[in-house]
């Protein structure tokens, strides 16, 4: 066994030990607490830790744990996707990148487990009565959770440590990664069920407030799936932007052009992943918000119009920062794409749209006024700008922001490309794929348009005369269906760009300018329908992304290039944007965690178990900002330390950051995958020969 193997083995035991310890201690704690619920009186409802308020301790530990949790659950999703892309396209860059992400994951995993153990200790120690109640409801889940944790840790280490040895069985290895994600998602779902139950408890005896249902009922609360979906997407975005910051730091510290090229590319891919996760998030958040409102109008009001409304303005700032920052990174990146200067004139228009939308996105309905301004306006609302603060305006502009971001990606993608082979001369596969995508779009739009057109207003508790309000969104969906046919037809006659423009143009017109304005009427006279308007906008927007991307792929299929993308030629300030994006999403996750948890106000379990501690009040936004900032510093501090440790072992194993075997990437590689000095595939060349010949980055893999 060489030294590198020894280092790996130590890492394995160190990480596994943390996992075992965490699971064991969780079980050990759970047993006496469960015993207590069977008759032993719990003397203290609350305890403190070294004079620090219990809430502060739990808040901090839970948030940092959740940040690590988001990272270790988000990264495997796109790591395995990247690995699968690498296996499918035979592009070794993706394989290496996936491996690099998983390396970070394995280092962060044990920290997540340790923080989970600390959180469990803190909860059981500081909130014994609350945890006794939760244990009574979820004790079976606790054991399953611990067992799943074993499964996930074993799968993770198997996935990581067999990366090289299973290169000959790449797809089996990919499935191992899929299994890792299955465990991770189930784990996340179980943990989310606790949060869901605390916000929307079910099967409660109204007299005794005791839980009378089954474990299954306790898990499947009304907010369970909204939280699941929101967190899943959030984790992908979170993992992407953290990966981006990692790449940026590595890029800034890179000493060779080869390393710069690699980390520049990693930063780009990470940003892409972050944005991909971010795009559906606003709608998932909207869905969750509506469901929160459905559970309790008090929580709903507190969230958007009450105590947390200003916190949502801060959230708007952070979300806007994420979108604008991602776009900015792309625009700067166009500087290293030969031929992209053709599109630089468009940037100012995209930027103007993004900024106007951002301005509307963060305009509150209820404006900050001083008394003089209040007198001048004769009230709290500005007669015209107040409309910008309403949900309908927000829904319209967030869709416009997403579509503008998508447009930036389109420009970036076609930056160095001439026109490709005319679509009519492409094979039948292209036609089948485009028609299939068109059929999916038609199906989605048609299904929902038909539903709205025939919907009975009574379904929404609306009077029968409100049926007319359903026709407008239905009509727009039908119009968009027609545009699907037109766009595909134009592509078939080699006018794909016109098809894209028409589809996007009509989409923007309907989503932003028609439904955005119509939403104000809906809010007033048929409020429950606003949810359907939002879904109409979202589904149309998603078909824009799907259809236009597919057309774009074939528009530039086989296109000649103006030149290779000059990876590694990004100005240093562009990397600070990646770091800023990372900070923005960490702050955002902290802020949203505060809102979700704070909505319960002075209830541990909403409406069932009241928080009678001295800390049962809603903290101010200033307190929240300090606490979330502390979490940000702690998380980034620990994660930097963990990544630094990863780098140490890397130096010991092979030396350098992959520099010795790293090559400038000149374009997609369609060759075999090199495995530890042997190329797997038709051509059995050595990895070095292959990478030298094709310009492949090859990170170190000490064997």
């Amino acid at each position, binding site marked *: 066994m060489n030294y590198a193997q020894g280092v790996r083995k130590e890492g394995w035991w160190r990480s596994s030990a943390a996992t075992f310890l965490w699971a064991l201690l969780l079980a050990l704690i759970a047993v006496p607490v469960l015993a207590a619920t069977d008759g032993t009186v719990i003397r203290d409802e609350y305890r403190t830790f070294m004079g620090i308020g219990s809430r502060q301790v739990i808040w901090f530990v839970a948030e940092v744990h959740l940040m690590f949790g988001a990272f270790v659950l988000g990264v495997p999703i796109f790591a395995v996707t990247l690995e699968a892309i690498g296996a499918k396209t035979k592009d070794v860059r993706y394989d290496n990148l996936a491996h690099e992400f998983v390396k970070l994951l394995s280092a962060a995993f044990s920290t997540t487990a340790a923080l989970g153990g600390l959180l469990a200790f803190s909860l059981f120690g500081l909130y014994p009565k609350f945890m006794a109640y939760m244990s009574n409801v979820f004790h079976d889940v606790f054991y399953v959770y611990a067992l799943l944790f074993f499964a996930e840790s074993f799968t993770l280490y198997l996935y990581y440590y067999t990366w090289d040895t299973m290169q000959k069985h790449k797809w089996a290895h990919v499935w191992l990664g899929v299994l890792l994600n299955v465990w991770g998602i189930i784990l996340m779902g179980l943990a989310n069920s606790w949060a869901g139950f605390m916000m929307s408890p079910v099967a409660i005896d109204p007299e005794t407030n005791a839980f009378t249902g089954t474990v299954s009922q306790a898990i499947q609360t*009304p907010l369970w799936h909204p939280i699941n979906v929101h967190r899943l997407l959030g984790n992908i975005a979170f993992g992407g932007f953290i990966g981006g910051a990692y790449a940026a730091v590595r890029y800034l510290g890179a000493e060779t052009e080869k390393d710069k090229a690699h980390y520049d590319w990693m930063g780009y891919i990470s940003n892409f992943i972050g944005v991909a996760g971010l795009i559906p998030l606003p709608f998932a958040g909207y869905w969750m918000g509506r*469901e929160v*409102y*459905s*559970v*309790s*109008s*008090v929580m709903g*009001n507190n969230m958007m*119009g*009450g*105590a947390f*409304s*200003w916190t949502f303005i801060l959230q708007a700032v952070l979300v806007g920062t994420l979108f*604008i920052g991602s776009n*900015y990174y792309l*625009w*700067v990146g*166009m*500087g290293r794409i030969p031929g992209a200067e053709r599109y*630089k004139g468009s*940037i*100012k228009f995209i*930027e*103007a749209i993004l*900024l106007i939308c*951002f*301005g509307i996105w963060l*305009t509150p*309905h*209820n*404006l*900050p*006024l*001083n*008394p*003089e*301004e*209040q*007198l*001048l306006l004769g*009230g*709290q*609302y*500005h*007669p*015209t700008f107040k409309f910008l*603060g309403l949900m*309908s305006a927000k829904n319209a502009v967030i869709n416009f922001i997403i579509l503008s971001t998508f447009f930036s990606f389109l420009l970036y993608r076609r930056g160095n490309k001439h026109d490709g082979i005319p679509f009519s001369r492409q094979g039948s596969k292209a036609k089948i794929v485009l028609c299939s995508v068109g059929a999916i779009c038609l199906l989605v739009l048609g299904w929902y348009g038909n539903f709205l057109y025939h919907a009975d207003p009574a379904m*929404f508790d609306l009077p029968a005369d409100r049926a007319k309000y359903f026709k407008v969104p239905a009509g727009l969906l039908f119009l968009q269906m027609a545009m699907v046919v037109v766009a595909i037809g134009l592509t078939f006659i080699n006018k794909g760009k016109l098809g894209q423009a028409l589809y996007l143009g009509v989409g923007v017109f309907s989503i932003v300018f028609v439904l955005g304005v119509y939403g104000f009427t809906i*809010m*007033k*006279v*048929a*409020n*429950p329908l606003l*949810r359907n308007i939002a879904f109409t906008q979202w589904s149309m927007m998603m078909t824009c992304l799907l259809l236009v991307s597919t057309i774009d792929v074939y528009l530039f299929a086989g296109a000649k290039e103006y030149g290779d993308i000059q990876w590694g030629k990004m*100005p240093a300030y562009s990397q600070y944007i990646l770091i800023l994006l990372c900070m923005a999403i960490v702050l955002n996750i902290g802020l949203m965690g505060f809102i979700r948890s704070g909505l319960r*106000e002075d209830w541990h379990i909403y*409406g069932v178990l009241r928080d009678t501690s001295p800390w049962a009040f809603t903290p101010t936004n200033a307190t929240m900002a300090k606490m979330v900032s502390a979490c940000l510093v702690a998380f980034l501090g620990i994660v930097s330390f963990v990544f630094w440790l990863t780098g140490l072992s890397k130096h010991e194993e092979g030396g350098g950051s992959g520099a010795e075997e790293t090559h400038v990437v000149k374009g997609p590689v369609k060759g075999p995958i090199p495995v530890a000095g042997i190329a797997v595939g038709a051509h059995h060349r050595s990895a070095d020969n292959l990478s030298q010949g094709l310009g492949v980055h090859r990170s170190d893999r000490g064997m």
Partner: protein
Amino acid sequence: MNEKRRVPIFWGCVATLVVVYIVFKFIAPIISMWIVGKSVPLPLPNALIMIYMILAIVGVAIFISTSEDKMEEFLQPILGFFRGGQSGILGMLRMGALAAVPVLIGWMVYSSTAPSVKPLTAIRVQHPTIPGKFEKMVNPLRDPSDERVQKWVAETGFQGAGPQAKTAFVDAMIAEGRGLFQVNCRPCHGSRANGNGPMSWGLRLRPADFTDPGTIATVVEPYLFWRITEGAFGLPQESTPWDSAMPAWGDEFSEEDKWKIIMADYDLSGAEPRMPEKIH
């Protein structure tokens, strides 16, 4: 060579910021005045203008830094101005600009720390937290029980039954609510529930305009029941500053009368109450 002439980036950026400021400070208030038919411009609050100006500055910074060429061109007049001697008019301007920097910082420090009588800008909670006891209330008149309708039919001698009687009952309740509204609420809330009652002019913060889709259309009926019952006095502490002159009607009305008034509020303003949504 016939190269297209364009405004230098630096001056283009300065002009953009000036135009944005003029639009929000002067033009938007005039357009707002035209839209709502007022006789005086309706200014945007300073806090909002500041937010928009920060966005504009961020936008300009993004624009000039997307390429190093633009950045260089933007900085050129600034560097050109500051690089040079101290003699002549340009030199004096240069020295003046350099001296202005610490003066500006000093002024900012002074203005942020010196005692001031300027009124504070307040952020206000739009929908304070409704107490739990009101949350689950249901308006019994919105979808009345058969017994309640039959009782009303017996009392009024209405000729009809089934859905017809139910509709007539709801209409009657709204009509009664309108009567109660006009007597008790109209002075402040206005005959059309748009916050323009004759007494509203005497209030510093005028009553909410119920025809605004962001007010009563966004809350459930029990919310209004709470506001009518407890008025400004029942507002929770966290909702301050809430400059409300709403009286607490408490027991002045029966519970049923309060529901009638609520139905009239929605009817007069043309809004629909927010429904306690079904869980999906």
